[in-house]
């Protein structure tokens, strides 16, 4: 409702996508969920939550309310963003921080994953500078998470405002969104090489949904 009032963002396919997602999640009870989304604006995770889950689900199935993993630099200096992150289930990371700091953040994420929580993550590592799924920017932490818990249900999510050309802070006011998702059946391959391969499987699904989007425009 807040988002609707702020920007009047809308997703015409929201109901059918929600139905598909609910069916998928109900078919895989007890499995932690990892939403792996493309990344173009600073409020993508809010929009994904808003479009994928109805308000009732967020209240009654709180484990489906996705945790987010924002970069501290992106919100740490803004009190409003800090409050929103505090309220919105966030585990912050410092991408250029120490190895210990990054390890601690990942330990929290892994813990939440093992609890069966839903986590929303951006495998591209940041907003795509090209405006398209950025394979070059891919970070392999997502692969690490799947390795740590192969029970994780990996769902690749593609969200894009129809007016979105490049990356931006906010989507264009009043924009209408395309939303799609796929279950990505990741093979849990061990080692660093495995982390890369798992991440690439997800990136490939995001690219495939992006191609579908542009092919049907």
């Amino acid at each position, binding site marked *: 409702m807040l988002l609707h009032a702020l920007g009047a963002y809308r997703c015409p396919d929201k109901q059918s996508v929600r139905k598909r997602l609910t069916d998928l999640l109900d078919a895989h009870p007890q499995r932690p969920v990892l939403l792996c989304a493309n990344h173009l604006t600073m409020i993508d995770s809010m929009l994904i939550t808003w479009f994928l889950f109805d308000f009732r689900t967020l209240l009654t199935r709180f484990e489906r309310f996705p945790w987010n993993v924002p970069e501290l630099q992106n919100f740490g200096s803004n009190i409003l963003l800090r409050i929103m992150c505090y309220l919105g289930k966030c585990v912050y990371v410092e991408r*250029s921080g120490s190895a210990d700091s990054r390890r601690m953040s990942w330990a929290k994420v892994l813990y939440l994953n093992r609890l069966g929580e839903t986590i929303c993550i951006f495998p591209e590592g940041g907003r795509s500078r090209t405006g398209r799924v950025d394979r070059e*920017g891919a970070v*392999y932490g997502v692969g690490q998470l799947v390795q740590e818990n192969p029970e994780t249900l990996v769902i690749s999510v593609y969200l894009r405002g129809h007016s979105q050309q490049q990356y931006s802070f906010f989507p264009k006011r009043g924009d209408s969104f395309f939303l799609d998702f796929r279950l990505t059946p990741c093979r849990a391959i061990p080692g*660093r090489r495995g*982390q890369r391969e798992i991440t690439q499987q997800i990136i490939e699904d995001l690219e495939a949904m992006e191609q579908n989007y542009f092919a049907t425009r």
Partner: protein
Amino acid sequence: MEQAEIYTNVVRIISKHAKNEDALKSISTDTHIIKDLQVNSARLVDIVLDFEDTFNLEISDDDADRINTIGDAVKLVKELMH
């Protein structure tokens, strides 16, 4: 493999991911991979995997975390090869 050859290969592998062309021109063992060459930290995994393939060795996570400069990488590869 001699140290000079290790250095050449390390620089070749890391250069592929460097965004700072000026820093590449004055590269040395003291050059910091992330701060000077502006390599995306996410690409460090690719660099370590390239090291493993090129020098036919295995690098642990702890060892990988010790790589900050070109010199660190050369030293680590040399240690693991001998």
